[in-house]
């Protein structure tokens, strides 16, 4: 077969797997969110649909599909329809550059475990895309022509802009150590247990807090603050349009966890694992193990995201802003300066 045909087939298959895998992962995150919240509150949680309630999320999505799609009379119809598409589209687009492992040879063809491997602006692409994601929420709030939605949308844009700064700055330390924006190379620079968490503990904490704010999770879920804003930016959405916002939130959560694993916890690196298992560079099995390691490292962070939601109350808006601008930003800047000085000394 011709080379380009094979390559495009492989690429198409990878895209299919990633998009569907993400949506299923988001569905199961919703299930686990409900289960964990139930356990924390000494309840049992969903257990009726399928064994242990495992098909609950599919029932939920099915219900959302069947529901009537209500568009307010005074809403700006075009933007109202496009806002959820932007939200979920951007959330999934980020996965073009996220690698889940290195590569394997399939019939002499080198297959990478990411859609666009070795793209030299990978990290910038993720940060840029997550900024565009704000448009989804802001447009949703504005086009609904509802004051609560508008407030939610405005809050989300203000919050995401403030925390994007400290998020980006907290990653500069990582960039200085690895010397590359390519996610593959960042992971490779951490091989052998030299994970960035040991060199950048402060950077990691700032990134973690900012990630909570970026994904609109409690304690920073002000855009949808139920008691004061009804539903926030998605008040006027129903049916699957609401479902798309919901899925986007969970996909963003997975993205944040993937970034934490890749940037701070060595990605697929586990010291001595591949040598003891005797897995060759480029074998299919090695790629599978690498994928498993990345996903396995993501699970504790996903759990942390969910558990935090059921443990902490929400911040007040001024507290949120003063934390972002007065604490996170100076700390991130100090982190860069200290990292730079230490690197100068030890070079």
């Amino acid at each position: 077969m011709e080379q380009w045909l094979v390559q495009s087939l492989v690429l198409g298959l990878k895209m299919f797997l990633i998009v569907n895998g993400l949506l299923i992962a988001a569905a199961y995150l919703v299930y686990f969110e409900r289960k964990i919240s139930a356990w924390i509150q000494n309840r049992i949680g969903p257990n009726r649909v399928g064994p242990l309630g495992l098909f609950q999320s599919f029932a939920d999505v099915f219900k959302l599909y069947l529901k009537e799609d209500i568009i307010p009379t005074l809403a700006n119809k075009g933007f109202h329809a496009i806002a959820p598409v932007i939200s979920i589209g951007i959330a999934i687009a980020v996965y073009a550059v996220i690698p889940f492992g290195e590569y394997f040879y399939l019939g002499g063809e080198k297959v990478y475990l990411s859609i666009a491997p070795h793209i030299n602006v990978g990290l910038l692409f993720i940060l840029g895309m997550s900024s565009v994601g704000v448009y989804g929420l802001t447009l949703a709030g504005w086009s609904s022509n509802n004051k609560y939605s508008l407030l939610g949308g405005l809050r989300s844009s203000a919050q995401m802009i403030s925390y994007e700064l400290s998020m980006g700055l907290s990653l500069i330390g990582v960039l200085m150590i690895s010397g590359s924006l390519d996610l593959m190379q960042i992971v490779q620079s951490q091989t052998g247990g030299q994970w960035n968490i040991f060199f950048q503990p402060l950077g990691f904490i700032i990134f973690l807090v900012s990630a909570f704010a970026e994904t609109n999770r409690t304690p920073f879920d002000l855009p949808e603050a139920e008691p004061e804003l009804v539903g926030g930016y998605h008040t006027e959405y129903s049916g699957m349009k609401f479902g798309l916002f919901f899925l986007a939130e969970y996909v963003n959560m997975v993205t944040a966890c993937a970034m934490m694993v890749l940037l701070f916890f060595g990605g697929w690196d586990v010291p001595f694992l591949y040598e003891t298992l005797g897995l060759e560079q480029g074998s299919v099995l090695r790629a599978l193990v690498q994928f498993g390691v990345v996903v396995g490292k993501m699970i504790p962070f996903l759990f942390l995201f969910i558990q935090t939601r059921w443990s902490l109350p929400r911040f007040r808006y001024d507290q949120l802003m003063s934390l972002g601008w007065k604490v996170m930003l100076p700390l991130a800047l100090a982190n860069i300066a200290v990292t730079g000085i230490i690197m100068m000394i030890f070079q």
Partner: protein
Amino acid sequence: MNIEKNTEKQRLNFWEKIYLPEIARGLGMTFVEMFKPKVTRQYPEEVWNPTGSYRGRPVLVLEEDGERCVACGLCSRVCPALAIEVAAGETEKTKERYPIKFEINMLRCIYCGFCEEVCPEEAIVMSKDYDLVFEKQEDAILDKDQLLIPMAQLQDRLEFLRQYRR
């Protein structure tokens, strides 16, 4: 003036002010909570049996020789939701009156128990039925056949009334 300041600065020490250790403590608490025994009752499988003090669907007491009700109409009169409708008839027995028609509209009933309280014959009492489902509005109007329950099934409530009624 005797005013004490109580600012955040005085209340919290350094570790409490940077939040993170306290957040970790909170997360630890919820984590421990996850493994404690669950309190949920799996309803349709595990049915709850209320005690005698429970006020469920009002019913008429049925004795061996017929209903206790003498159709005085007090329950209908006292009902704040106007849910009860009674029509009286006469017989040759010792109890000269009986209800020809006795209907309770369960869409109106508020389970206050006034009918039971006011009844001079202890003929209408609150039962333990709580899973009431109707498919049509007409089905929710219970007639005499549906309301009459043998006295043996109402022993808990009658016992409760004997003990606590003035």
